[in-house]
């Protein structure tokens, strides 16, 4: 199934219409058309350099599309993204506690020149608790382990009160146990809060277990379909022209 496959579900949050993405007007991927519905769990798969992060950044509005159109609105209002970047990208020179990092998620609702009010601080604590990060809220963010940082960043994303949780390789640089724990948590929080999830990952096993839809970027082509369909051994063998277990 190619990228132009349309998914019809109750409410569409993100629609890509013949979208081309890339840097400096140079397209990396072209002709993408699909949509993401409210409440879905979609994984973006692909090798390094396949355009996963470029697609994610375009969806988030961090990069302009090279061509085509992307609609990210819900009932006329712009979507609120809860973005979870890779934890390794943060500079340790910032002496921020885990709580202060998580509190940044509320800054979209706090006007410039004002400090975050107590209700936002209480909500941040609630999100840290939900993400299992409450016990290290007072510790310096830079001193936390990879898995702990991911939990704090997930808490920060939840603090934005998101329509959609967008995660860029949340298990990169995280050990196997923590990877399992982070993926289980994302799945659980999605069910509890009925949040839409868009996840970039290399982890086929996690995608098989948790994702419903898959966007697979492979050698310049975009494949879109259900996880069950795209990740079947036959389909994968067909794509790679060899069998993958």
């Amino acid at each position, binding site marked *: 199934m190619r990228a132009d496959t349309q998914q019809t579900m109750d409410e569409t949050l993100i629609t890509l219409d013949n979208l081309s993405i890339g840097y400096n007007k140079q397209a990396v991927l072209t002709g993408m058309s699909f949509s993401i519905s409210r409440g879905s769990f979609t994984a973006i798969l692909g090798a390094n350099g396949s355009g996963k992060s470029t697609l994610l950044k375009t969806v*988030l509005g961090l990069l302009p599309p090279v061509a085509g159109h992307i609609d990210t609105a819900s009932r006329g209002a712009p979507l609120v*993204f809860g973005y979870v*970047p890779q934890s390794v990208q943060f500079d340790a020179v910032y002496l921020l506690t885990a*709580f*202060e990092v998580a509190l940044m998620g509320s800054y979209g609702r706090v006007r410039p020149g004002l*400090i975050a009010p107590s209700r936002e601080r209480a909500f941040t604590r609630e999100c840290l608790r939900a993400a299992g990060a409450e016990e290290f809220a007072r510790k310096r963010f830079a001193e936390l382990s990879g898995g702990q940082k991911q939990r704090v960043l997930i808490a920060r994303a939840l603090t934005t009160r998101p329509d959609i949780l967008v995660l860029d390789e949340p298990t990169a640089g995280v050990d196997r146990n923590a990877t399992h724990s982070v993926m289980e948590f994302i799945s659980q929080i999605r069910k509890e809060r009925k949040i839409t999830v868009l996840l970039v990952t290399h982890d086929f096993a996690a995608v098989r277990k948790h994702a419903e839809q898959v966007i697979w970027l492979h050698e310049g082509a975009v494949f879109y379909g259900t996880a069950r369909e795209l990740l079947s051994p036959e389909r994968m063998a067909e794509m790679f022209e060899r069998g993958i277990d």
Partner: protein
Amino acid sequence: METLYQILNPDFLLRNSIYTSVLIGFACPLVGVFLVMRRLVFMGVALPQISSTGVAMALSLPMWLGFNLTEHGSHSTHALAFAGSITFTLTAILVLAFLERRGRGQPEGRLGTAYVVASALSILLLSKNPYGEIGWLDMLKGEVITISNFDLLLTAVTLVIVIAALALFHKELLLVSFDREMAVILRKKVVFWDMLLYLLIGLTVSMAVLSVGPLIAFGFLLIPALMAHLFARNMHQFTILASLIGGAVAFFGFWVAYQYDLPVGPTDVVLLGGLYAFAWIAAKILPRGLSITYKA
């Protein structure tokens, strides 16, 4: 101790100099903290020098145009120097930050070249300018002697504005510095906040260079912040400690310079350097836990 009583006396002849030094000592580290966090330490070296080139250029312009600067009084000279300083500083910071963001070439090379060319140009311009001899060369060397009430007031007002803006918009300035992508996603006006931060850095550097010279400006921009980073546990401690170190060293440096008849600028910077070395050794020996635990 007698010297200390003298300089604390409200009738002390050089009171404006000490007040200005201490004001600069408190204020410079507050913007220096952002230079350290944004990894723009080399910019902190180059900017004061570029600012002083702006002063030299502004003071040379009337001479080239055939005006006699001394007829217009010291206030207009100071205003002209400030205009030159702020123009050069802001232009340089915007160009250097833009090139830094594009990520091409060698940032250290650019900043090193800017520093050395600005230094040479300042000296060349002022050596051919008759007004350069009326105190400006001393200023470039870091001699803090002749500061009028007007200069002190201008410094105080500018620095109060800078400190108020930093305190008021700390949340936004920290967010765009720490996680620019998150700021964009939260629909913050990232370019506006960057410009505001550069404006505040530019104002502080210009005022510091005009009041106490590039040497002290550079010393107080960076060394207190680097020193405070060794011991602080959170951003509040980092900012406050850097500012307190700057203010205390400015005062102590002035006292030492007055006591031993030394130039204030070099005395302050050598003191800062010595303290930084001492602090670095202390930080290696002591556990990183001298500070108060942050309460969430």
